[in-house]
């Protein structure tokens, strides 16, 4: 099947996923907006107004960290068992298993980009953004998507052979949420613990957002974007290699 046909299958599965999720719910597609906006508001309330963190342009800071994090976290947690939940369909049709993961990530990406753009437009009323930083956004989004797709593909494949993966993943993501400078700035972390930020691949994918939107600096942004590219490419190679290595046994184990 050609790439064009695979893309049609992927887009069909993505739309089906989006339709099915909010079918029979009262608020329906409003949940796409509501969920991240509530998270955004709660974080803003707690850290800006209750804990009174002294962070310049806190809403922009939160927009550039929290929403990408929700995308990463939701994509991984909701797709890690996809090969098992889609077992029936995978064994019945010639659906490429990667199309399943791609469709799940694309679905989450839409759920991320709509509230992201909404909040961005709202914040533009009061905040100013550097145009060069904004020009980097498509590239940053691409690397974020590739990185998340690759991580998800790797973990979903691992889950087929190692059923503890989803529990370990959930645990690690919960820990990483606090270890990743999302709702607090990096400089608040003591020097001896900065290594945990440096080796955190999710932070590497999110960091360019912060620099492009919050504290623009071209050399730093260029370096962060290159690191993001490296992490995305590295995970893609890892995921595809693991996929190739295990593919023969995948259908037996799902």
């Amino acid at each position, binding site marked *: 099947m050609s790439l064009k046909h695979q893309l049609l299958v992927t887009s069909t599965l993505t739309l089906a996923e989006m339709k099915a999720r909010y079918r029979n719910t009262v608020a329906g597609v409003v949940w796409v907006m509501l969920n991240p906006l509530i998270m955004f508001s709660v974080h803003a309330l707690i850290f800006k107004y209750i804990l009174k963190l002294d962070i310049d342009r806190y809403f922009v800071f939160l927009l550039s960290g929290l929403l990408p994090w929700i995308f990463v976290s939701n994509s991984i947690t909701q797709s890690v068992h996809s090969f098992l939940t889609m077992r029936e369909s995978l064994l019945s*049709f010639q659906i490429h298993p990667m199309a399943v993961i791609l469709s799940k990530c694309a679905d989450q990406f839409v759920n991320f980009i709509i509230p992201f753009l909404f909040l961005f437009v709202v914040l533009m009323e009061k905040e100013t953004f550097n145009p060069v930083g904004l020009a980097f956004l498509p590239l940053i989004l691409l690397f974020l998507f590739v990185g998340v797709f690759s991580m998800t593909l790797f973990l979903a494949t691992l889950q087929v052979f190692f059923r503890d993966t989803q529990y370990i993943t959930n645990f690690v993501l919960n820990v990483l949420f606090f270890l990743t400078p999302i709702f607090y700035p990096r400089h608040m972390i003591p020097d001896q613990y900065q290594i945990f930020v440096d080796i955190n691949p999710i932070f590497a994918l999110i960091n360019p957002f912060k620099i492009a939107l919050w504290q623009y600096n071209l050399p730093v942004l260029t370096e962060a974007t290159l690191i993001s590219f490296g992490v995305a490419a590295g995970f893609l190679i890892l995921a595809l290699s693991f996929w190739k290595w295990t593919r023969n046994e995948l259908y037996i184990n799902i």
Partner: protein
Amino acid sequence: MNSISTSRPVLKIKDLTISYNFSRYRVVGVRDLFVNFITSPFNFLFTRQQKIDVLKDFSLEVQEGEIVGILGINGAGKTTLCRTIAGMYGTRKEIEVEGLLRAIFDTASVVQPELSGRENAWIITNILYSHLPKKERLEIVEDSLNFTELDQFVDSPFKIYSKGMKVRLFLSIVSARPCGLLILDEVFNGADRYFNEKISSRIRAVIKESGAVLFISHSEEIIRDVCNRIIVIGKQKLLFDGGVEEGIAYYHKNFSMELGNELEL
């Protein structure tokens, strides 16, 4: 049915070996790893990976017009062979397929149970007929929905469908267009007698128009009716390749112990 074969090969398989790493799917969690390590540390550390050969040096050529019934006891590798040909285990250089390949392994399967029959029909059509233009895919959906006779249920959620209703919808879509090589694995199971007769003629028409067909069924009656060639696989190899009656007789003779459980006589 029994259409006449021509000399144009549609499927060529040369020295295909399908094997699985058995040890890789015995241990599935940390607890199992831990228990295995504690109970038998030597075996855990030094036992070499076990490989299971499903098929070994398997060769097959299918010509245009041939409808090949595949017989074999459970676990012989019929479905595994067909899934391998369909490319579900990755591309294999030992396999050459001429033209478009469509493979169906379960007719009661569903993509999104929350969505309606019509919406699922559109999803299945997009998966099976992604090479066709949108207009033709829409025609397939409408034609198939009419053929199912599910009437007002086509807009009901798929999750409330009985198995027979799912089979009706699925088979109607699958049988909408011919293709180069069609692989059908137990497709006649699940539908009621009335619809079975109705869909049988539609599927037979598709089979007739398709380049060649690989057909798996445990029903001798259907195999006799549909196929013009039989292969029997077992013991990791091709045991028989020839005519329908000879193939069924061979299967009876060599697997008589298992037939009580296997064939719907």
